[in-house]
């Protein structure tokens, strides 16, 4: 994942194939090791980066947006009480529970699990996965410092208009 400075002061997040592969591998491993139902790796703005397990049965787009909203709201609470950040959140349900962890202040690792495992095991495995994700994200930050080619520089007005033809 790469964050580049923009002309208007905005930043852009770019994910390249290698990094997604590594994050996917961490998610798959965490899914197996924790015996969770599904794993989502979501960026703090609500975009899904990778998923594992039964994620295909879920509305991951909506989940990602809500998870990011939830983390943003909790971050707002932290700021108000002068706490740096709440790095973890846990929502306990009757059937399914959700464990969320913020990694490197940039991505949210979401684990959905049921009675097939325990919260203790999930927390333990999440700790290990967090270290691995931190390593990947660190590599990514290094890569972001190297300028990359903008593949969208070639987009024409016609390309943009074509999107709205329906």
């Amino acid at each position, binding site marked *: 994942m790469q964050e580049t400075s923009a002309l208007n002061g905005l930043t852009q997040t770019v994910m390249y194939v290698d990094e997604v592969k590594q994050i996917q591998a961490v998610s798959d491993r965490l899914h197996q090791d924790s015996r969770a139902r599904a794993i989502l790796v979501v960026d703090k703005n609500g975009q899904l980066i990778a998923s594992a397990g039964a994620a295909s049965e879920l509305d991951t787009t909506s989940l990602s947006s809500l998870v990011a909203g939830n983390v943003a709201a909790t971050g707002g609470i932290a700021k108000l009480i002068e706490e740096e950040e709440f790095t973890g959140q846990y929502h306990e349900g009757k059937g399914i529970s959700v464990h969320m962890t913020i990694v490197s202040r940039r991505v949210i690792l979401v684990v959905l699990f049921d009675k097939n495992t325990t919260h203790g095991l999930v927390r333990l495995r999440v700790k290990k996965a967090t270290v691995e994700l931190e390593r990947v994200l660190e590599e990514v930050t290094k890569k972001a410092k190297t300028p990359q080619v903008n593949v969208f520089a070639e987009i024409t007005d016609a390309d943009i208009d074509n999107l709205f033809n*329906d």
Partner: protein
Amino acid sequence: MSFINYSSREINCKLVYYGPGLCGKTTNLQYIYNKTKPDAKGKMISLATETERTLFFDFLPLSLGEIRGFRTRFHLYTVPGQVFYDASRKLILKGVDGVCFVADSQLERMEANIESLENLRENLADQGYELDKLPYCIQYNKRDLPSVVPVEELSELLNPTRVPEFDAVATTGIGVFDTLKALAKQVLTELRKGS
């Protein structure tokens, strides 16, 4: 903040509908949701109070098709318009790629419009953004109501920088897609510049 995923070949952009309470932000999203083909939209999520006032945000994911082999998706958000939900509004502006300001055309809502627009500038500045440098358009909503202010007057008051502006009646859909298209185009044009 646009999100480009080379692995899934997707571009995701975040558009935020901003404006005073009851100006029609949610109605814009509802109309877009109702008129979009099922395969081009996700679920619309509304985090609202029991009286259907937006509490945190509405969210609608749209898929517009492919551009240079990349699937183009827009995530549409609204903010809660009521003054006291300012902390939530600030959070929703995080990572925004384009803003639509929905103004309520009624004379009695002019102060609310001005206040909300100032609030937008302040909240963007808090996140390190400048409204004048962002893809941005204005919609004058509720043009069907009796006590509306003439568009020229609204424009003079709310649109000094002459960004694209649209008349609308969001309940019947007039101007809704024109506004969305204009904003989406600006965002994609910005992407081309390398932002």
